[in-house]
């Protein structure tokens, strides 16, 4: 664990720009990038160290793909109570609020269903498998307090829908705490936070939003001085069957992907987890995604 941590922490690239530095690394299966409005290489290196360490720490702790990490132990407790720390408890608390606000459609216990939907563009799961998996999905059966967590054997938790946004916010928060005067744009695979406002006389950060039809080329340009944005969409992971495109957003109540969901939803909000959750909830609204977001009085961009 410590070897991986160290390797991850020093494994970044830093390059100079006229307005500061760009640093990049990979974490959470995504390209991660920091745009730093500062010319001092020692400072930007220290910022990159902090960002890579924190991203690696969160990935190590909450990825469901790492054997023997804290989440793996929770998911292999076989119905017994697992001890949890304060950070895990607050993520669970947030997940519970999202579960309640979405009336059960956002559910971090949906892992067994997600595992059936392997979005490689070919397979479509059997209905009987979906029914069996649905029986193991119910966040209301997860009980926890500040110190421990317990759920029935066979169930599992997956923080995939929150962890990356959470990592973006944590990195943004730690950077702002330590370097409160340096504007930074933290971008982990399209989930973005800019904690320190850019100087009034400097141009705002420009963020391109991908066009789902033409990947890797910016279709819309958003300007951001401070705040966060997150994107939810099926741009890269989907199954097509009978001409119907099934995105990676699964409705745990039916066991099937949401239909008529936008291809992608981008939401601006004060922080990244909020933006990400609003985008996810909008996707879960399917055809009503735009109406839902309009009612939330947030800035957003939907591609269909």
């Amino acid at each position: 664990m410590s070897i991986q941590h160290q390797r991850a922490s020093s494994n970044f690239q830093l390059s100079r720009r006229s307005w500061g530095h760009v640093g990049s690394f990979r974490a959470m299966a995504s390209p991660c990038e920091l745009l730093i409005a500062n010319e001092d290489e020692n400072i930007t290196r220290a910022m990159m160290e902090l960002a890579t360490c924190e991203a690696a720490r969160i990935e190590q702790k909450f990825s469901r793909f790492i054997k023997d990490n804290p989440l793996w132990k929770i998911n292999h407790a076989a119905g017994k109570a697992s001890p949890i720390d304060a950070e895990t408890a607050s993520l669970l608390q947030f997940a519970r609020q999202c579960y309640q606000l979405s009336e059960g459609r956002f559910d971090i216990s949906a892992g067994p269903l997600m595992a059936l939907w392997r979005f490689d563009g070919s397979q479509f799961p059997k209905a009987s498998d979906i029914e069996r998996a649905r029986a193991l999905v119910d966040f209301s059966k997860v009980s926890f307090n500040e110190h421990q967590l317990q759920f029935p054997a066979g169930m599992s938790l997956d923080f995939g829908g929150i962890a990356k946004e959470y990592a973006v916010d944590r990195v943004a928060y730690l950077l702002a705490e330590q370097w409160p005067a340096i504007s930074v744009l933290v971008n982990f695979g399209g989930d973005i936070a800019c904690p320190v406002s850019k100087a009034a006389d400097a141009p705002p950060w420009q963020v391109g939003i991908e066009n789902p039809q033409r990947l890797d080329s910016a279709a819309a340009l958003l300007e951001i001085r401070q705040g966060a944005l997150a994107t939810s969409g099926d741009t890269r992971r989907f199954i097509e069957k009978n001409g119907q495109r099934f995105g990676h957003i699964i409705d745990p109540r039916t066991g099937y992907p949401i239909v008529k969901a936008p291809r992608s939803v981008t939401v601006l909000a004060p922080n990244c987890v909020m933006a990400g959750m609003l985008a996810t909830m909008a996707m879960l609204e399917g055809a009503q995604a735009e109406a839902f977001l309009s009612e939330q009085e947030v800035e957003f961009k939907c591609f269909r």
Partner: protein
Amino acid sequence: MQLKNPSNIAKALALASCALVGQSAQVQASEEKLDDWKVDAAIMYYGEEDRVQAVEAIGNVQKAFGDESLLDMKLVVDSLTGASASGAVAQAETQTFTRPSGDGQYQTAPGETPLDDTFHDTRVQASANWAETLSPVWKTNVGVNGSKEFDYFSMGLNAGIERSFNKDNTTLVLSGAYTFDTIDPVGGKPVAFSAMAVRGDYNTEEEYRTAFDLTRVEGTEDKKTMDMMLSITQVLSRRWVFQANYGLSSISGYMTDPYKILSQVDDTGTSQGYLYENRPDSRLKHSFYMMTKGALDAGVVDFSYRYSTDDWDLNSHTLETHYRYYFSGRFYGQVHLRYYQQQAANFYRPFLMADEPLPEYASADYRIGDMSSYTLGLKFGQRLSGGHEMSYRLEYYQQNPENNGTELVGQLQDQDLFPAVKAIMAQVSYSF
């Protein structure tokens, strides 16, 4: 999908996400809200080489009442021991002095600076200050303070008013203070320029006592101080502020140090006797101060200059800087440099000539003589969980007294009349 009260989701998520993301900040902020008390405790050691040692305990409590009112209370208890320079000059012979109380004597070895080693005291200082925000642009504060040591009692009142202009970029402060001190010297107040009675010059204890009592006056003395200060603070840019102050101080009453003496020497520089010093009973001081402070990417720096002058002709210049560097969000180091230079008061005399008439006022206290001093300091601060902070400070302080141009006669040329005073200061503070 049908959501209940869909427009509330964004608000609910905003709250929930803040609780998650700003975790530590949120926890701290809410603790401060629930508990508006802020407590600082510190213990300080000050030690001069072979001279005064002091240990000081400082407790400071702040309590906010809403956003408008702040009560600040401070208690300092210090204990001083050790010796301080009496004002007499070093000699080639052993010198014998009477203690200030008249009971007993002390001797100073040849070549040594005479130090009165009876110096020990405990001092208690307390102050309370109330600050009130009257409107977005007006603020005011009032305070009281008092201090008590064995031979000294002081009480003071202060008040100030602050007005901000130009969207808070400019602040003007006018403040005033009045202090009343009572001095009750050990062994009584010495008669100005009376000669120290030494037991060895008398045949009997009774004769000595009679002579000693003639150098003393019964009763207490007092001193009144009025201070006024006008201060302007200007925000220069997003990172820099500038401050300028003008201070006026008028003091009247007993300012003589009852424990300080002057050597009276003949033309070979040999002591003929010791006279108790005498200082004017009024003093008018002006001080001018300028400071600029800037926020750097990972630190804070300030520079200041002070010029002070008074009608005793004691002029001083102070240059000072602090540089703080944040190694991380929780740990900083700070460097402190200070240089001070003063020109002697017009009645400062390192010694008196026995065959010359007495001046109206005279003092051999090196602290009002020509002097320069510097301070080198290091401080480290560490923020702990829950908003607590721990800091450590270590400073080296050196005073270099200088001759004010007095011609040294006879054996005085062989003595070090202006020895440097070196001190170490160490402090540990805890805020919670």
